[in-house]
């Protein structure tokens, strides 16, 4: 019992120290970012011939209802040179016919490049017009497989993966590409902010008015995303140990992705795994590199509003994290991999994998301790207050950083709701999340199928915008 209590105390102190440090690092990183970025500087950078062409990769499986709007809005983004590559991953609905009809596509003879392996391509389509669009129709193989096909066919030096049911803000590509323009040799990947679109007004693939979601589950996820993106990712960027670039919106150097072998298709956490592999390869080759989180290019995505779908999503994320850890266990505590090996991966193991188990077991032990009189009610209440207040401080710290960087919800009522949900998440939601994560660990042996996902334009949740780590 004493050993357990000391372990829990140590764990809690480590958690506090790490998150407080990340928050401080994030504040420096975001301050540096906002001091650099001005609209005229951005415009000048994007007008220069140094702005590299970007291939926007859109893997699509049964997206007939929203695919045309998505592609239209992507083609209209503010960036000088964009190719949109849609990868139809063996859809069984009208996704391909809809694209052919709307964009007047015709089959083009295009041999499949051999750089990355993927399921066979059935046909390649291009519009009769001068639109920079390519549609690859391939056999079903999952999202990672589709992205590999897209990377193969892309001819631009940068590739940007975007979920078909996500919405990019008009200047998102430019802002995300800026680190590549500023430091083309070293930057290998960048990721932007993923925000929750539930409750927002959406018109023809554009968010016209940003609102907070009405659903409680979605609101709790707003708090999680806020903490993860502003409190954590910006901090990891400061020490070049960012472990994840969201699958919903991430930009990569194409040659770097090809050099490491593309996305792995045998994991559900392909986005995190790729980023960790990029770290591993660059560090092993002693090549200077940067993987950057950029704070304000926004990708709007639909969050699950039902417990059933949220549970499935969290189980997948947890499995993905653990799979990545297992694949790259050799990096753990290895000084060769600097911040990634010495801090980020151990933190992932400790706080994302072991943390939920420890916290839930803590509830049981505490309850037993209370019943047996081993823990006084006063100590229990104080420890509970400590945990809730610390969680609240992390959320508020992230909210302050968001407020100082780019806040799409300026109404006072929004701030009030965020504060209420930041307190409320400690009483039920967090525990539920931990439970689902533990389920995810148990499920590790099972493999997921892309085809099993339910997607229906922006009315269904996405699965790849993981905010954690």
């Amino acid at each position: 019992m004493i050993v357990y209590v000391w372990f829990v105390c140590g764990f809690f102190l480590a958690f506090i120290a790490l998150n407080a440090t990340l928050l401080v690092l994030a504040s420096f990183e975001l301050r540096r970012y906002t001091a650099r970025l001005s609209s005229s500087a951005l415009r000048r950078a994007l007008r220069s011939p140094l702005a590299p062409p970007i291939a926007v990769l859109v893997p699509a499986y049964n997206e007939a209802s929203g695919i045309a709007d998505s592609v239209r809005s992507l083609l209209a983004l503010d960036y000088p040179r964009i190719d949109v590559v849609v990868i139809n991953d063996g859809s069984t609905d009208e996704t391909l016919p809809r694209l052919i009809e709307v964009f007047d596509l015709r089959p083009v003879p295009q041999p499949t490049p051999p750089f990355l392996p993927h399921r066979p391509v059935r046909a390649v389509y291009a519009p009769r017009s001068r639109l920079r669009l390519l549609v690859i129709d391939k056999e079903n193989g999952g999202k990672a497989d589709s992205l590999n096909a897209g990377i193969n066919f892309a001819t631009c030096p940068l590739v940007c993966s975007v979920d078909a049911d996500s919405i990019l803000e008009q200047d998102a590509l430019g802002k995300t590409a800026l680190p590549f323009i500023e430091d083309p040799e070293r930057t290998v990947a960048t990721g932007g902010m993923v925000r929750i679109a539930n409750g927002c007004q959406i018109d023809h693939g554009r968010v016209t008015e940003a609102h907070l979601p009405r659903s409680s589950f979605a609101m709790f996820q707003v708090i999680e995303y806020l903490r993860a993106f502003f409190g954590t990712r910006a901090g990891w960027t400061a020490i070049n140990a960012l472990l994840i670039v969201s699958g919903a919106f991430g930009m990569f150097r194409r040659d770097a992705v090809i050099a490491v072998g593309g996305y792995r298709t045998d994991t559900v956490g392909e986005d995190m795994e790729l980023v960790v592999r990029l770290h591993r390869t660059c560090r092993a080759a002693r090549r200077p590199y940067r993987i950057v989180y950029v704070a304000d290019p926004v990708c709007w995505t639909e969050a699950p509003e039902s417990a059933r779908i949220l549970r499935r999503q969290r189980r997948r994320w947890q499995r993905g994290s653990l799979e990545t850890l297992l694949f790259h266990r050799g990096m753990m505590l290895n000084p060769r991999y600097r911040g990634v090996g010495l801090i980020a991966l151990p933190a992932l193991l400790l706080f994302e994998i072991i943390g939920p188990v420890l916290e839930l077991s803590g509830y049981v032990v505490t309850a037993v301790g209370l019943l047996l009189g081993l823990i006084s009610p006063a100590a229990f209440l104080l420890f509970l207050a400590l945990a809730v207040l610390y969680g609240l401080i992390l959320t508020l710290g992230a909210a302050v950083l968001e407020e100082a960087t780019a806040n799409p919800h300026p109404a006072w009522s929004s701030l009030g709701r965020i504060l209420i949900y930041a307190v409320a998440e400690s009483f039920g939601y967090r525990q539920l999340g931990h439970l689902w994560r533990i389920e995810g660990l148990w499920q590790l042996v099972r493999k997921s199928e892309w085809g099993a996902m339910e997607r229906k334009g922006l009315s269904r949740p996405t699965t790849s915008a993981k905010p954690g780590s």
Partner: protein
Amino acid sequence: MLQALADVVACLAGLVGLLVLVLIAIRVAALRRATRARRFGPAAAASLGTYLAGSGAGPAPDRPGERPLFQAIAQEALADLRGDDRDRLVALMGQLGFTQDAMLHLKARRTVTRRRAAEMLACLATPVAVPAVTDALADRDVLVRTTCACTLAVTGTDDAVPAIVAVAQRDAPATPGAAASVVLALAQNRPEALAPLLAPGTPAAIRRIAITIAADLRLAQFATLLQAALADTDDVAVNSARGLGMIGEFPAVDALAQVAADDTRSAPARAAAADALGAIGDPASLQVLERLLAAPDWSLQAAAAGALARLGEPGRTALHRTAASGPPEAAALAGAALKP
């Protein structure tokens, strides 16, 4: 123990209260800015529009909070305006004291203030600010000095070129993007100043940037220097080959063919050379490209097939030959290249 825990909880509760206050303060400030923008923004934009249309007196942003807003609107407008309208707006900004303010702020202690001033002067691009901008080339902040170097490339005289080049050279290794923007400004306004940066023997970091920009801007006067750069490292050769292709430099065909045929060069360099040969369209490169079509690397085969398709009839004949009897991958690429 309990007392210590209670003290910690009290401290954390205090911190929560403090953070809420900070949050509220930031939000109040943001809302005040938004209110100001709503209140003055449309009027400021309208008066600026009227002034530029020549049918009104110049705007006079003198109420509290109005000046930063007007400056932001004018800065946005300056990015889009050209010709007389631009000159009139620059003159107006001078009359209203914005130019003077920016020149003063270029000496401020806060880096952010100096960066904003440098941005403002870059938008204005007025010769009045040349002395201030020249002084700022020695600024300790990379963004301030490179922004000022860009401005000077537009507004300065030929005497300023060595100082601008020195800034680009200084910042190229650590901040290549910022250095590239300086070289680009130089290339767009004084292309002849690029020559020393392109010459062999120039530090690799800046030379690589200069070659990329000369290629992107298709500066034909530097074709000989680009051709010489083909012998440089492979990543430099990629850009110089691309530039030679875009310029359509016939005399470079032999050198490009040599790179394309050289097994010791990287695939991207050889593929870029093949692309350039296709873009130039000289049938003399037929043999090299046909051989490349049988290379083991797919990207080389694809580049060769694309290039052959652009060589006209001789290239198409070679593609037909490969499509009919070449190895399967090359045949597929040749077949695809033959289709319109």
